[in-house]
């Protein structure tokens, strides 16, 4: 315990000395993000963990959590697979790893404090934030309780106070952010009697982890869990058995959480910018088509009317002409008939005269 604390203070000093150098080497370009240069973390050496649950007890104490059903000395709880709860931010589980059949393997779990936290990415009130010192902290004063953080977290860490009807909160490990700010170690690290937990600058922890693996290739799997997983985490793990044998998912990929949704987010302004243009264009075309249709209809109607009119006029003219002709014909006929009648009348008078004379 004291060793790790002394080491910690030493690393803090080293971190301070190299701070300026580190900064210039990491001159961020806003194109590629490598996390806060001074970020702290914890290296969990799974091979060193003996499952004593001292870390759990310390966590319970420093976070002032309610007393558990079974005391922390009782290691029988290790027979069950447990996960963090609203009343226990960290738990140690026992695994019978197939590749190390002789003895069980113990692994501590808690929030991994991602460099690019999924919980922070999805929170619509930005209740989660990554502090420059390393911890991912939660602000209960703004939380609405949508629990999207719990959907998003690939490590299934955030827990929710479902039984609190009025002021439920998300609960998770804080990496003892208040203690770190005071220059203290996280509760679990301070309590670990086996140096299975080492606290320090994440960059240094990575070096230590890799050095350990290099020095003891027979003892460790050649992988630092958390170096790249989900874009990297502040908690790092080295293990003697494959990580999936101690309940750690190896299929998470290395994409930082915000990158998973950035594509969809970037489509939003394009839709807002272009959809109205497209729709207004469609509307304009529709309206124009309707206008043309109306005009064509009008034209057709007037044309039909015109046609009908002219036809009627023609008919009328024809009828008039015909009437005139008929009239003339009738007049002529009448004239002829008149003349004929006069002639006949004259002839008949001439005939009757001599007849009279005869009788």
């Amino acid at each position, binding site marked *: 315990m004291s060793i790790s604390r002394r080491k910690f203070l030493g690393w803090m000093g080293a971190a301070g000395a190299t701070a300026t150098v580190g900064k210039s080497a990491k001159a961020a370009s806003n194109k590629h993000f490598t996390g806060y240069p001074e970020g702290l973390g914890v290296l969990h050496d799974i091979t060193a963990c003996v499952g004593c649950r001292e870390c759990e007890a310390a966590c319970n104490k420093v976070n002032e959590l309610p007393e558990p059903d079974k005391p922390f000395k009782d290691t029988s709880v290790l027979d069950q697979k447990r996960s963090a709860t609203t009343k226990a931010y960290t738990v140690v589980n026992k695994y019978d790893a197939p590749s190390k059949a002789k003895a069980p393997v113990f692994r501590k779990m808690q929030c991994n404090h991602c460099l690019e936290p999924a919980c922070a990415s999805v929170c*619509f009130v930005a209740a989660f934030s990554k502090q420059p010192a390393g911890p991912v902290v939660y602000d209960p004063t703004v939380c609405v309780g949508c629990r999207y953080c719990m959907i998003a977290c*690939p490590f299934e860490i955030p827990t929710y106070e*479902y039984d609190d*009807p009025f002021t439920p909160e998300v609960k998770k490990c804080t990496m003892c952010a208040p203690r770190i700010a005071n220059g203290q170690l996280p509760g679990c690290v301070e309590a670990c009697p086996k140096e299975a937990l080492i606290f320090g600058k994440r960059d240094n922890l990575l070096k230590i982890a890799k050095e350990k693996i290099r020095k003891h290739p027979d003892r460790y799997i050649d992988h630092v869990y958390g170096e790249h997983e989900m874009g990297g985490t502040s908690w790092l793990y080295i293990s003697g058995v494959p990580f999936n044998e101690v309940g750690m998912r190896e299929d*998470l990929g290395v994409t930082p959480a915000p990158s998973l949704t950035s594509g969809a987010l970037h489509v939003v302004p394009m839709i807002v910018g272009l959809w109205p243009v497209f729709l207004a264009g469609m509307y304009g075309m529709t309206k124009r088509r309707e206008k043309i249709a109306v005009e064509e209809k009008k034209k057709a109607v007037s044309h039909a009317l015109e046609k009908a009119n002219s036809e009627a006029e023609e008919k009328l003219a024809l009828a008039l002409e015909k009437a005139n002709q008929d009239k003339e014909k009738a007049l002529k006929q009448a004239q002829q008939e008149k003349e004929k009648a006069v002639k006949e009348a004259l002839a008949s008078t001439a005939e009757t005269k001599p007849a009279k004379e005869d009788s």
Partner: protein
Amino acid sequence: MSEQLISENKTLFTPFNVIAGIIVIIGLVITFLRFTKGLGTVTNLSDTSPWGIWIGFDLMCGVALAAGGYTVSSACYVFGMKKYHAAVRPAILTAFLGYATVLVSLVYDVGRPVRLAMAYPFVVQQGTTSLLFEVGLCVMIYLSVLFLEFTPIPLEWLGLKKIRNIMIKLTMVLTIFGVVLSTLHQSSLGALFLIAPSKLHPLWYSPYIAVYFFVSSIIAGLSMVIFEGTLSHKAFHGKMDKTYLEEHDPLVLQFGKAASLVLAGYFSIKIIGIAADNNWHLLVTPYGLWFLVELLGFVALPCFLYAIGARDKNLKLIRFTAGWTVFGIVLNRLNVSLIAFNWQKPLSERYIPSLMEIGLSVFMVTALIIAFKFIATNMPVFHEHPDYKETH
């Protein structure tokens, strides 16, 4: 007097009213428990399954099935299908009530509903990197747009001609806003799951999931208009005017045809999705078979049935297919949010809704139907002008 009472009792205790009444009472009991004892008492939610059917069914399906609002109004006002003007009002009403129900469900589901009501994400602190922020913002604005789109009815009723005419002039702008907002939040509901590739089954998790949600919302919108029209026909035939009735059959035919077309496109891009992630081998797993049930049974089959119905002018088949498709959309949303979510976990660690959760969802649907029934009976929804109400 006594006779009147008896006749009133007779009309009050219809089978619908009795069943609805029982459901409402159960719903109120669950409501009381939820807000006094907490989510833990009422739901089967856990730390690994933080979203249950109130999100998976009430929110996801509710929003998808309310897509008729923007689908019909854009078809009518933007794409020039003015013929179907009479279908707009019922669709807008359904959408408005659907979204209102979604909002009420959220009040039950979130841990601090008061903060939701006070619009914390938009007023207090903006989590703009969250797709839920975008969904919430769009749903909130869209609900207002739907409300404005619906206002001509009461304004006509009250005889406020001037304001009504302004609102009618705004119809175009509101419709375009509605389409923009719907495109955004319908797609973003799918994009909510982009953050969890390790939890959602790869056949449903796709980089195209936002597009899938948007396109299937159009299908849901078209199908819901047909489906809901069929139900309304049975319930409110007396309330429908000549225009509505005359336009209804050609509308069913046209929308059936349109739905068939969109389903064909949806089917194609779903296949592309499998290819994009090289997930072919997963199709022969149990989840793959379930995926095929959804893809073939509820996308390809209704596409084909709609096509047959449109070709043969078989309205009965189109109406049946509309119901089938609506069920398919519900299945898809449940698959994404619940069934294929946490698929790697053993059944003992999986979420199964509690009876009270189901009870509350049934209560929500019932409340929606009661509200729709009330408005459709008392307000001019299926006929054009309230002034002419007496003549019908």
